[in-house]
């Protein structure tokens, strides 16, 4: 259970990205966060693993207070929370295998890992993770030699290395051709069915309907909706995204 309680975030330049946001995420949910660009989705996801420190409010994961964890505790919390990014965030010049192995840094012997030495069992784990996302044969390619869809699958394999309880996915399909969206989200769905909680920000309404078990909508940093995906019809969608918004269907591509 992840509990987000009265979280606000004000950036040093005065931008208020989140205003008093509260909701709970039960274990095993596929929670989708929707909202316009700049509505605070990315900030919210990054507050959960404290890539960004919230200005106010508390976040609890089970009984652990994430918001007050010290550096060492925070690293332990983080290695249980995988993260997938819109821009994949791979080290482009490193091999796919090294990128995937880096997901294991929170567990690895700090000194051996600095020398680039990994035990065979970790390499096997990485190859298995790549096989799960269907690109085992790319293990020794350079990351930037892969297509966007393949790079995002490497991103998922990297998150898998953490044996995560939660996966945060920050617009994981926004940089991909719409036809690839389902392929990426299906991998997340499979992981979700295996018991990993997924918190994912998305733009396309039909993807929301297809994958979300529950939806939170943000507008100008405030939570404006929380409920099941079915409750979001066109009228609700316009309310969240504004009158000028046109719904785009990923399936129509």
């Amino acid at each position: 259970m992840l509990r987000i309680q009265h979280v606000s975030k004000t950036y040093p330049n005065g931008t208020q990205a989140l205003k008093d946001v509260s909701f709970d995420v039960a274990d095993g949910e596929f929670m989708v966060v929707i909202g316009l660009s700049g509505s605070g989705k990315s900030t919210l996801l990054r507050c959960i693993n404290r890539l960004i420190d919230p200005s106010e409010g508390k976040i609890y994961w089970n009984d652990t207070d994430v918001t007050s964890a010290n550096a060492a505790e925070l690293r332990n919390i983080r290695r249980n929370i995988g993260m997938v990014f819109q821009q994949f965030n791979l080290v482009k010049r490193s091999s796919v295998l090294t990128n995937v192995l880096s997901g294991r840094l929170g567990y690895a012997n700090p000194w051996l890992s600095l020398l680039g030495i990994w035990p065979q069992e970790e390499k096997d784990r990485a190859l298995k993770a790549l096989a799960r996302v269907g690109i085992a044969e790319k293990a020794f390619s350079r990351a930037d030699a892969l297509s966007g869809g393949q790079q995002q699958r490497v991103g998922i394999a990297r998150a898998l290395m953490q044996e995560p309880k939660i996966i945060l996915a920050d617009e994981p399909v926004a940089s991909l051709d719409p036809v690839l969206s389902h392929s990426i989200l299906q991998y997340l769905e499979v992981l979700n069915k295996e018991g990993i909680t997924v918190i994912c920000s998305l733009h396309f309404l039909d993807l929301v309907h297809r994958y979300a078990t529950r939806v939170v909508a943000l507008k100008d940093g405030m939570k404006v909706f929380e409920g099941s995906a079915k409750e979001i019809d066109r009228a609700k969608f316009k309310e969240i995204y504004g009158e000028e918004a046109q719904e785009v269907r990923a399936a129509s591509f």
Partner: protein
Amino acid sequence: MENRLSTGKIIRNTLLAALIILALGISWNVTGVDFPRLIRDLPKGRNIVLAFLTPDLTTRETTTTTVSLAFPIPCGSAPEGEVLTSGPRLVPSVTCAEPKTKFTLEGFDLAPNSEIVIRWKLPDERIMTAIRVQSDEKGYFTANMEARPIAATANNISSRLEVDALTPVGGLKPSEAVQDVLAAMFVTIFMALLSTTLATIVAAPLSFLAASNITKRGPLGTLVYYFTRSIFNLLRSYDPLVMATVFGFWLSFGAFPGFLALSVVTVASLGKLFSEAVEGIDPGPLEALQATGANRLQMVIYGVVPQIVPDFISFIIYHWDINVRISTIIGFVGGGGIGYYLSERINGFEYSKAGTAIWAIVLVVMAMDFLSAEVRKRLS
């Protein structure tokens, strides 16, 4: 109102223009600009340029055959030499002479087509070269001589006329100058390599401290960031030449102080370039690594290093290239290597040897330039 404003503008601009003209006039005067001299002094310049353009590149192996003849100055001060009638021999028009008397010297049956070196061997065994001529195909030469007062008989021993015939044998071989230039160039290239290496070892870790995205966090980090930055800037403001002179006085001149001066300047320059490369990395992978629970050092090794390696290597090679050039200049103030060789040859009026050095510098700089450009192209 607008009119008055524009009048003010005109006055201001006119004053500004007058000031600029005044400044340029002063500059002209203090520089001693005299373009006609470029033409007037052309002959002087031409000789030097010609010498530079005909570098001392090759010599031939020669065998030397020597014949000699006692030649008393003045007559009667010592026994006259016996003039032979066959075989390699010297035949002077007189067998003795008063000081300053002119005479001719002929040689017969010497090595044909050879360089003939005629010299005085003085009573005290010192050698004084008089003239160089060329023998014909029969091994004959003739030369106009003067009985030099310095070659006067001393202690009843007369001076001797000595003639070396230098016959080329075998092919061309690199001249002494070429060998010296190669050795000096070797020193320069490796001095530049070593100083670049030392500078890299110092600058690479420091550059992370001077990178805002790595260091500028919290008050301590910000302090370290500005401190490292200002050290780089301070060191960069010193010209390598000034630095070399300082180290030269400190450690006496040679390659070592030159190397130190180069290293210091390169640390500053590489440090700044490196830190800018670190600042220019994609922060995305760092965020991803942080999210996995990696510590800061792991983030640097897995997230920063792979992104900066090509830039770092390209900067290092580029600086090696630059340092070869700078160390040439540093050599002029005593920093050793090819620059020192060049300045010594110029000071000794040995312009052909200086020409050899200049050609070598041009070739090496061009080669380094090409190589470093190629390597950098491959890396990007």
